[in-house]
């Protein structure tokens, strides 16, 4: 018994040492981001580059945009990579964030069952939303205050509806985009998704055919991703210098080229767009 306990303790010491040794010299930059940048493998591809070129050890927590902003407000992270322009601007106005820089975009698309019971294929997005609500067709919402969810609410409003629909077939998953696509596919429902996650979801041909793109291309469906540094005046422990270095690299030619070259299943998912300074 004693020997066993000694063995366990020894193992703990070794593991503890390994944990610290792994930290290395690079400064850590803690990011809160959305599920799409993580689930597509974008950050997995980016992190080694950032470590090599900038000597920054990029770590991230992937969650919805709503929670990411909240983590920033509470000073628990250094930098945010999120996609909800309206909420972001408010966030910066309230002094929680600084140096907001648009980085890239992809777009939202409306997907749904191949049978298209609400007849939305090819229509304008506002008209499509009205038809879905009007025919009380199955619609799966993220319902998690994520960037995609905020965009969905915006689209219901733009379609002239007083509020988000509430009928039995309007389903809220409260989960990430991939899980929500899975639910939409299984329940033969419509849903709003970013194209990046849809590309990943559609790597399986069978699943791709279960959720064809029905409406796409409108300006209001563009999905802008921005970097925001958590305000160092409010959160003194923010690694502002690393955040600045990282942001400048991402909006610069090298970072933009990296974004443009990133592929999922042979297709680009994020389009670099750092010219739009705000």
């Amino acid at each position, binding site marked *: *018994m004693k020997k*066993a306990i000694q063995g*366990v303790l020894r*193992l*703990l010491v070794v*593991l*503890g040492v*390994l*944990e610290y040794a*792994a930290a290395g010299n690079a400064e850590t930059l*803690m990011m809160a981001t959305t*599920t799409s940048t*993580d*689930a597509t*493998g974008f950050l*997995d591809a980016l*992190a080694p580059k950032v470590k090599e070129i900038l000597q920054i050890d990029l*770590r*991230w*927590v*992937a969650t919805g945009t709503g929670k990411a902003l909240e983590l920033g407000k*509470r*000073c*628990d992270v250094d930098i945010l990579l999120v996609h909800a322009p309206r909420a972001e601007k408010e966030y910066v106005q309230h002094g929680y964030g600084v140096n907001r820089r648009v980085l890239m975009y992809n777009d939202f698309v409306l997907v749904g069952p191949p049978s298209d019971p609400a007849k939305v294929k090819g229509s304008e997005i506002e008209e499509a939303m009205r038809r879905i609500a009007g025919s009380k067709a199955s619609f799966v919402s993220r319902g998690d205050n994520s960037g995609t969810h905020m965009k969905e609410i915006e689209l219901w409003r733009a379609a002239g509806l007083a509020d988000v629909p509430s009928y039995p077939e309007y389903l809220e998953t409260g989960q*990430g985009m*991939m*899980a929500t*696509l*899975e639910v939409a596919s299984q329940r033969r429902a419509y849903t709003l998704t970013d194209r990046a996650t849809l590309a*990943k*979801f559609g*790597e*399986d041909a069978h*699943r791709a055919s279960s959720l064809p793109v029905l409406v796409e291309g409108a300006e209001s469906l563009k999905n802008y991703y921005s970097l925001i540094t958590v305000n160092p005046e409010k*959160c003194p*422990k923010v690694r502002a210098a690393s955040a600045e270095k990282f942001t400048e690299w991402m909006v610069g030619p090298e970072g933009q080229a990296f974004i443009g070259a990133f592929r999922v299943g042979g297709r680009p998912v994020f389009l670099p767009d750092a010219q739009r300074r705000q």
Partner: protein
Amino acid sequence: MGPFLEALIRAFRMILTVDPEVYSAVGTTLYVSTVSLVLSLLFGIPAGFLLGYASFPGRRVLRTFVDTLLSLPTVLIGLLVYGLLTHNGPLGRFELLFTVHAIVIGQSLLGFPIVTALTASAVEALDQRLRLTLLSLGASPLRRCATSLREARYGLLAAAVTAYGRVLTEVGIAIMVGGNIKWHTRTLTTAIALETNKGDFAAGIALGLILLLMASGVNAALYGLRKRA
């Protein structure tokens, strides 16, 4: 090829090719669950012993309270620990959020009531004549405790196995206060959650199989101890 067969093949491939990501998650899982278990036992056994052995006013109420804590949802523990460790929280200045230490704190809170309740039960189940015999032989209080614990050792082992199982397989705490950060706080369970998010179900199942394999290894080791004891 069905997803389960594919998962099985991928699990073997992950193990045999020493996939560094998988091994990192295995290492983190082993580290946090072991430290959490040791802490749970360190505090839970004395607490459970007192609760089962001593008699004091309010013991019943406390016992019920501890039993209730067995139903603590892991996401609630995660939220509590987040509230403690967040930058402006009471323990914020130690900067423990999104580290393995944060997971250890949460998982210890998860394991502690399990060890306490099961130790109390094991001690309560001891033959009353043991206590009387020890008393009549004039054994010192320390001696009485040690002998009683020794007699309850199978119960304690069961407590440790149960707590380890719970700590090893929970995901709510690890994802909320650990953050599922690759190479650092990604455990097997949070990796499964991520693979599910990515829509790669076969990879998720493969990681689940590795987790089960680990659990059976730990249990085999514990039962080896039981044979010798």
